[in-house]
């Protein structure tokens, strides 16, 4: 049975990409409910992601509004992967003009050096054109790369594979 506390925690949104809930983003790992006491487990997307503090505060506030006494803890392992973004979350990204990540690189053996621009099949979230070019592997938040559409010329963000 899905607990009420889980439903509340799952509906809290990411502060930087508010079209995604923490459940859609895949950072919400566990919600343990024992009467009014709730322990929520979240996993950071990137080691330095400054949104973590806000996620924690939002979780505590929303759960407190719903009558719970909440504590938020961190799970470092397994490390977050962009593969954990749900299909619903990917659609929400596209609906808001962001390009959703492709499959994350699989680990196993040494990580190969890539000196050519990262090869991705990225289509423009506005006009749908497949003719897009990478502007930068780093964007306004740790999790996004910058792209530009060669047809409609609009810049857009792509959530990186990690």
């Amino acid at each position, binding site marked *: 049975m899905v607990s009420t506390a889980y439903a509340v925690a799952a509906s809290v949104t990411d502060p930087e990409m508010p079209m995604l809930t923490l459940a859609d983003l895949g950072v919400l790992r566990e919600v343990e409910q024992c009467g009014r006491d709730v322990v929520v487990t979240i996993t950071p997307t*990137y080691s330095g992601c*400054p949104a973590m503090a806000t996620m924690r505060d939002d979780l505590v506030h929303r759960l407190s509004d719903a009558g719970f006494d909440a504590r938020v803890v*961190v*799970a470092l392992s397994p490390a977050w992967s962009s593969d954990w973004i749900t299909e619903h979350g990917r659609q929400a990204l596209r609906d808001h003009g962001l390009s959703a990540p492709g499959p994350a690189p699989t680990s196993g053996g*040494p*990580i190969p050096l890539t000196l050519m621009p990262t090869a991705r099949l990225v289509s423009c979230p506005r006009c749908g054109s497949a003719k897009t070019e990478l502007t*930068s592997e780093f964007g306004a938040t740790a999790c996004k790369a910058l792209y530009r559409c060669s047809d409609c010329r609009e810049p857009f963000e792509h959530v*990186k594979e990690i």
Partner: protein
Amino acid sequence: MNDDEHSTPDPNDQHGSVYDGLLGTDTSQWAFGTDFEDPLAGVDTTVPDDLDAGELATYCLALGDDALVMSHRLSEWCSNAPDLEEDIALANIALDLLGQARLLLARAAAADPALVPALPQGSPVPVEDALAFFREAIDFHNVRLVELPNGDFAHTVARLLLFSTVRLAAFEKLATHRDPVLAAIAAKGVKELAYHRDYAGRWFLTLAQGTEESRRRLLAGLTDVWPLHDELIRAYDAGPDVDVILDQVFAVSAVERPEVGSMTGRGHTEALSRLLAEMQVVARAHPEGLW
């Protein structure tokens, strides 16, 4: 209309500051980072029986210091990089490393609380901040490569290539460390460092094969950082896999491995003291401050 609604606000009013009403008591609506969040909240930090807690703590501290100091140098590029994309990229890399530093300093403190400098009774400064802001240069364990003052962009690219190549190789091994906390931090870091290494490698190639001037600057930067290559390799216990990667970048860039000797001595250069003076000044001026 009630005149009181538009009366001139008095910040010294007994009812509080003019800004109080904006947020009420919900401080979560302020910008990020106003409240301390333990990066290891809820993580089991018990040191496994077969590990020496002191050694583990010192090792994590060294890895954390490298990330902290390198992060600071990279963040000095904010608003100074050659173009907006590189400004953002270097800030992103600095942020990843700052995150690694926070986790590693917190891990070090949990493994050996004796490492943490003593602060006045009742000080609200968390352990990771005590380690970052209240230690003297002599107590930092970072390699000298990361503390060198910034040169031009090519110098930063050369330094970042060496640093991220060696750190990535080491973190790939550390991901199976017997301490599950360090292993988890390393496994996370691997994903970030792979992006950093590719970034540095691409710029290394671009500058080397760009114009005469970009190549001249890159070679000068590489020659400047290379004397600290050996110390870096030793600190990370790096194997031949690191040289394979570096030689791969050098080969496509048509750059020879520099033939300059290693910098001798140990400890730190004067540059670290100056860096720390700037980084620590506010925290030290307000040891009981709340941020």
